[in-house]
């Protein structure tokens, strides 16, 4: 492991990669800060730029963007009470009241220190857990993978559905249908192409991500522009106050950080759960741990209340890399986007990545940590200046997002068909968003579509067409029972419970 860490450090600490991670963190912070645009959009917008890099540098850029976007989301939560990402909603509960009390700088500093500490602790967990899990996951067979992917899709649907599980499952099926377009991977038979040569290679993953996230988010912001409930709030960005944290506040953070880190990491590892659930659970847990006097301060600018969700959401980000790096199965929409990018580089994440491409495996882990250091050292002091991006009028912002989206597709194929297809999918996605059909399950299903079909094919061929592979191996059975449990619970919740 030490050798691997050194390989990773060697790659991640090259001058080029340090500059890349700095740019990534900076760009991620800016994009993540903009309400409505989260890490998925930030990473999606960066994909075309990574074409010019080698795989390790490309992934380092995306890891930097990811952490930057999460940090940026906290900034808009604290300054505007407008979380850039769902994972930072809980941050606003105490961060925004602190900002209203004239302590915005302090709130941002507490958020940054907590994120850094949470990220550091979880990076150590990741360092220990990932290689061990990689070795265990070598014993996984096709039926186990199939079951695990079904669990991932079900879990993401359950957690992102806001009580509307069937809608999320509908998006899963739509994602799988979109993934089935193009040539069958084994027989090369064309499916659903209707004689159109542009579809013979299937729909590109970048196109789907750009359309359903970057472009449709931009269109949604414009579409809902007249909604008085969604009008952008403005605060004075010139007076953020001091970013110094006193001794008493440091002691409070020191108590909160360890427990929130552990919780966040464990939640992050679970498929589908991710930063949002982790931050809410950490907030709730912290409220139960503190004294009655401190409990009263929750929602009014509590240090514990701000530190807990910030620590947990960053820890969960690291945790979500565990299933991606060790099993090759993303546990969240964001890691699904990263999986798509990895596949674009010709790298198949999974247990063998640790052996075949150790420099990628370790440099991604190392660059996450470097990203967090960059966020703390560079971004925090620059926050008063970076925050001015919130004042950029949407009249400029939206066309620029559209420009990046269309450019991304143009660079890939140099053909009009893909641009039209992206616009069409973005328009459909905008209407689906309007009626709260979640997009992360669609992305995850699209990314996993080919892998699910491949593993189902192998499982069925091995069992000679019998579905007994679902219960032949105890591991497959256990995973499927958990999946059925989630489906049953969700249906119970949406039908029987009021």
């Amino acid at each position, binding site marked *: 492991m030490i050798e691997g860490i050194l390989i990773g450090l060697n790659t991640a600490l090259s001058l080029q990669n340090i500059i890349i991670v700095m740019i990534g963190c900076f760009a991620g912070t800016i994009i993540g800060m903009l309400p409505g645009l989260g890490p998925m959009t930030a990473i999606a917008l960066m994909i075309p*730029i990574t074409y010019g890099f080698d795989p390790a540098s490309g992934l380092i850029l995306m890891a930097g963007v990811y952490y930057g976007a999460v940090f940026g989301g906290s900034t808009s939560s604290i300054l505007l009470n407008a979380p850039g990402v769902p994972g930072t909603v809980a941050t606003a509960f105490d961060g925004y009241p602190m900002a209203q009390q004239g302590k915005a700088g302090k709130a941002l500093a507490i958020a940054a220190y907590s994120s850094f500490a949470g990220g550091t602790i979880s990076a150590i967990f990741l360092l220990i857990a990932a290689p061990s899990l990689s070795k265990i996951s070598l014993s996984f067979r096709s039926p186990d993978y199939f079951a695990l992917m079904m669990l991932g899709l079900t879990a993401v649907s359950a957690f992102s559905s806001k009580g509307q599980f069937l809608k999320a499952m509908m998006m899963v099926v739509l994602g799988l249908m979109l993934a089935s377009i193009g040539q069958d991977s084994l027989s090369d038979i064309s499916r659903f192409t209707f004689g159109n040569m542009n579809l013979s290679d299937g729909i590109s993953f970048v196109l789907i991500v750009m359309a359903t996230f970057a472009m449709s988010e931009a269109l949604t912001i414009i579409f809902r*522009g*007249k*909604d008085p409930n969604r009008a952008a709030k403005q605060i004075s960005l010139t007076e953020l106050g001091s970013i110094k944290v006193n001794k008493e506040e440091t002691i409070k953070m020191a108590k909160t950080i360890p427990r929130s880190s552990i919780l966040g990491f464990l939640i992050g590892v679970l498929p589908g759960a991710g930063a949002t659930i982790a931050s809410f659970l950490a907030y709730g847990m912290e409220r139960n741990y503190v004294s009655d006097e401190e409990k009263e301060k929750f929602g009014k600018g509590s240090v514990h209340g701000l530190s807990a969700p910030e620590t947990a959401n960053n820890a969960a980000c690291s945790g979500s890399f565990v299933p991606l790096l060790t099993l090759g199965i993303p546990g969240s929409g964001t890691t699904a986007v990263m999986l798509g990018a990895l596949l674009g580089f010709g790298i198949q994440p999974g247990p063998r990545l640790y052996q075949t491409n150790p420099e990628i495996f370790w440099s991604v882990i190392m660059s996450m940590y470097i990203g967090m250091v960059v966020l703390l050292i560079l971004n925090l002091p620059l926050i008063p200046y970076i925050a001015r991006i919130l004042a950029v009028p949407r*009249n400029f912002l*939206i066309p*620029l997002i559209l420009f990046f989206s269309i450019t991304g597709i*143009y*660079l890939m194929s140099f053909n009009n068909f893909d641009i039209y297809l992206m616009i069409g999918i973005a328009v459909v996605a905008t209407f689906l968003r309007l009626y709260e059909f979640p997009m992360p399950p669609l992305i995850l299903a699209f990314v996993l579509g080919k892998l699910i079909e491949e593993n189902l094919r192998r499982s069925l061929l091995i069992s000679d067409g019998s579905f007994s592979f679902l219960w032949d191996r105890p591991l497959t059975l256990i995973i499927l029972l958990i999946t059925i449990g989630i489906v049953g619970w969700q249906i119970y919740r949406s039908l029987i419970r009021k």
Partner: protein
Amino acid sequence: MRISPTKFISLLFFIFSAFYLYTAHQIVVFTFDENAPFNARTFPIYLGWAGILISGLIIILPEKIKIEVNHKHLDYKSIIYLILISIIYGAVILKIGYFLSTSLFLIASYYFLGERRWLWMFLLSFPFVAIFMFLLHGVLNIYLRDPLLQYLGIIG
């Protein structure tokens, strides 16, 4: 009878799934693969049925959470303009090249979204695209097809 938007979208997906299922059955597989436990049409057929089942359930089951969207608050005009500009951009990008079409796309988008600060509109279009192109083409060595700039000898 008034059908809720969620159920209407589900009904459209139900029809789409039925069409998908029909098309899945039409996939031509190799003769020797016809009776194999798994062939090119197996997975799409499962997906078609899954789509019909899930959308059917949404249509049939009572709607516990109703999504209300006030259409008076939706800015249809701007979004139609933006989509049209994007389509035109897609249509001309190959013909007139990346630099000119992108710069014009940006200026048009700013204008239709209500922006009238011409200096900013200019700075965030032509010079901005030029810098972006330089970063992609010159620094990152990412090929950018632009027949106009190639004709003018600005890029190779």
